[in-house]
C-alpha cells in the first residue's frame, strides 16, 4: 500500500494546554475513501486541521504525497482540497467568482470551463451569479465543496459534510463523492452517521479522546468486531432460564417467550450448535429462529466504551 497521506506520532496541544491528539499514526492509501468516526470532541477536526495547515503541529510529522506539510507546504497543499466543518462563506461574493478565487489562490491558471463543470456537478450552475448569502445552507455547503474542488485536488477532506443536511442532499453528496472516487480522488471524511461510513468508506478509523483506536476495512471491521444475535422464539414462555442453558451471552427475552444469545462471528466456536442441542435436550419447543448482525454503530459504541482494543 503506497500512502498518499502519512501521519506519524502526531500530538497536538492547543494554546490553553488541552491535548487534543495524543500520538496519532495513520496511513491513507491513494484513491481510498476513509471515514473518521468519533464522538464530538474526539479530535477529528483537529487531525484534519493539522494536515491541512490550519493548526500547528505540536509533535510528530505529516507528509502528503511525500511532502512534509510544514517544510514543503506548497507541494503538500497543492494536492489538498478542504471542506471545513463550519459554513464559512463570503456572503457578498457571487458563487462563480468565489470558486474562481480559490482556483487562483492555489496557483492554477484560470479555467472557467472547469469551474462550470464543477458547478454543474454540484447543481449550482443556475446559481452561479447569485450572492452566496442568498443561498440556502445546503447550497452554501456545496459552494464550499466547489471551492475545494476548484484546483483539482488529489485528496479531499470533508469534515462532517452531511451534518444537518436533509436526506435528499445527503444522497446527492454521496453521488458527488462516488464520482470523485471513481476519478481516483482520495477522500477523507468525518461523520457522525454510521450509515454514511458504511455506505461510502473503504476503511473506517475510530477516534476517541485524541486517540485513533483502530483503522480497519469497513467489511472486515464488521466481520471481526461484529456480534450477531440469535433469537429463539419459544413455544411456551419460561419463568427463568433453565440451568442447563446458562452460559455467557444468553438472556431470557421479554415475557420469557424467547431466548436471546449473542455470539462473536469471529470466534472459532460460536456455540450455536451446542445451544440448540441443549434447548432440545431441555425439552423446549422452538417456534422460530432468527439472527441479526450488529451495525457499525454498535461496534463503535462498544469501542468507545471499552477503550483501545
Amino acid at each position, binding site marked *: 500500500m503506497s500512502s498518499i497521506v502519512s501521519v506519524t506520532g502526531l500530538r497536538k496541544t492547543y494554546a490553553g494546554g488541552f491535548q487534543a491528539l495524543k500520538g496519532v499514526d495513520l496511513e491513507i492509501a491513494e484513491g481510498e475513501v476513509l471515514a473518521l468516526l468519533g464522538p464530538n470532541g474526539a479530535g477529528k477536526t483537529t487531525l484534519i486541521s493539522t494536515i491541512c*495547515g*490550519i493548526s500547528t503541529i505540536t509533535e510528530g510529522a505529516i507528509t502528503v504525497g511525500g511532502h512534509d506539510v510544514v517544510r514543503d507546504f506548497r507541494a503538500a497543499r497543492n494536492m*489538498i482540497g478542504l471542506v471545513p466543518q463550519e459554513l464559512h462563506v463570503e456572503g457578498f461574493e457571487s458563487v462563480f467568482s468565489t470558486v*474562481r478565487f480559490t482556483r*487562483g*489562490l*492555489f*496557483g492554477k*491558471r484560470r479555467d472557467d470551463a472547469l469551474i462550470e463543470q464543477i458547478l454543474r456537478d454540484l447543481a449550482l450552475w443556475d446559481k452561479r451569479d447569485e450572492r452566496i448569502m442568498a443561498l440556502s445552507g445546503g447550497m452554501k455547503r456545496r459552494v464550499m465543496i466547489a471551492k475545494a474542488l476548484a484546483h483539482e485536488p488529489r485528496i479531499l477532506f470533508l469534515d462532517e459534510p452531511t451534518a444537518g443536511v436533509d436526506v435528499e442532499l445527503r444522497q446527492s453528496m454521496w453521488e458527488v463523492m462516488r464520482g470523485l472516487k471513481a476519478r481516483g480522488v482520495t477522500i477523507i471524511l468525518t461523520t457522525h452517521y454510521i450509515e454514511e461510513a458504511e455506505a461510502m468508506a473503504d476503511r473506517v478509523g475510530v477516534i476517541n479522546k485524541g486517540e485513533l483506536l483502530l483503522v480497519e476495512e469497513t467489511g472486515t471491521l464488521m466481520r471481526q468486531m461484529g456480534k450477531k444475535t440469535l433469537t429463539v422464539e419459544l413455544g411456551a414462555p419460561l419463568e427463568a432460564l433453565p440451568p442447563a442453558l446458562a452460559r455467557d451471552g444468553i438472556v431470557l427475552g421479554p415475557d420469557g417467550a424467547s431466548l436471546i444469545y449473542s455470539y462473536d462471528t469471529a470466534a472459532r466456536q460460536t456455540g450455536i450448535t451446542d445451544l440448540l442441542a441443549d434447548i432440545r435436550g431441555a425439552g423446549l419447543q422452538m417456534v422460530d429462529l432468527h439472527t441479526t448482525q450488529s451495525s457499525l454503530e454498535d461496534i463503535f459504541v462498544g469501542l468507545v466504551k471499552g477503550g483501545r482494543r
Partner: protein
Amino acid sequence: MNLAAIRAIYIFEMSRTFRTIWQSLVSPVLSTSLYFVVFGTAIGSRIETVEGVSYGAFIVPGLIMLTVLQQSVANAGFGIYFPKFVGTIYELLSAPVTVLEIVIGYVGAAATKALMIGLIILATSTFFVDIRIAHPVWMLAFLVMTSFSFAMLGFILGIWAKTFEQLNLVPMLLITPLVFLGGSFYSISMLPPVWQTITMFNPVVYLISGFRWSFFGLADVPVAASLAAISVFAGLCLLAIWAIFRTGWRLRT
C-alpha cells in the same frame, strides 16, 4: 512565486472596493472639501502664507497624507480582519501561499485604494487652491511608500484585532492624533522649541515633511531623514508580519 494567488487576492480585494466605490470616494472627498472650507478659508484668512506658500496650498500635502494614512490602515485592516471574522481565513491558511504573497495581495490592494483616494483629493484640492508640484516623481514615490507601509500596519492591526471595535479604535486613537500633531496643518517651525523636540518622535512628521517638500521644496526635516524613516517603518512592519505568520499568532490554532 505563486503569482496567480497574488492576482486572485488582489482582484478579490479590488472588486470589494469597487462594489462600494461611491462610499469609498464620496466620504474622503467631502471631508477634504470641508477641511478646505474650515482651515483654508477661516484660518487661511488670518495666516495667509507659511514660508512663502499660501496657507490653503500649504495644507494640501497634510490633508492628502491624513486620508492616505487612514485609508491604507483601514483598508488593509478590514481586508484581513473580515476573513477572520467570517471564517473564510481557513482558505488562506490551507492554500499553497507564502506570507509574502498574502501580504503583497492584501497590502497591494489596500495601498492601491488609498493611493487612488489620495490622488482624487489632490485633484479636488485644485478646485480650491493653486497647486504646483516641484518634484512630481518624488511626490508619487512618497505617496506609494506611505500607502504600502501603512497598509502593512493596517494588516497587522487586522490580524491583531478580535473585534470590530478594536479594529476601528487604533486608527482613531493612534493615526489621527499622530497626523494632526505631525504638522499637517502647520509648519513644525511654528511650534515652541520644546514641542519641536517632542514632535521629532512622531514618525508622521517625517512623512508629511518629505511629502510637502515634493510639492513646495521646503521641509521640516531633511528629505533623507524622511526616506530613512519610511524605510525603517516599512521594514519593521514587514518583519512583524513575517513573525506573525511564522508563529501563527492569532491566525493558526
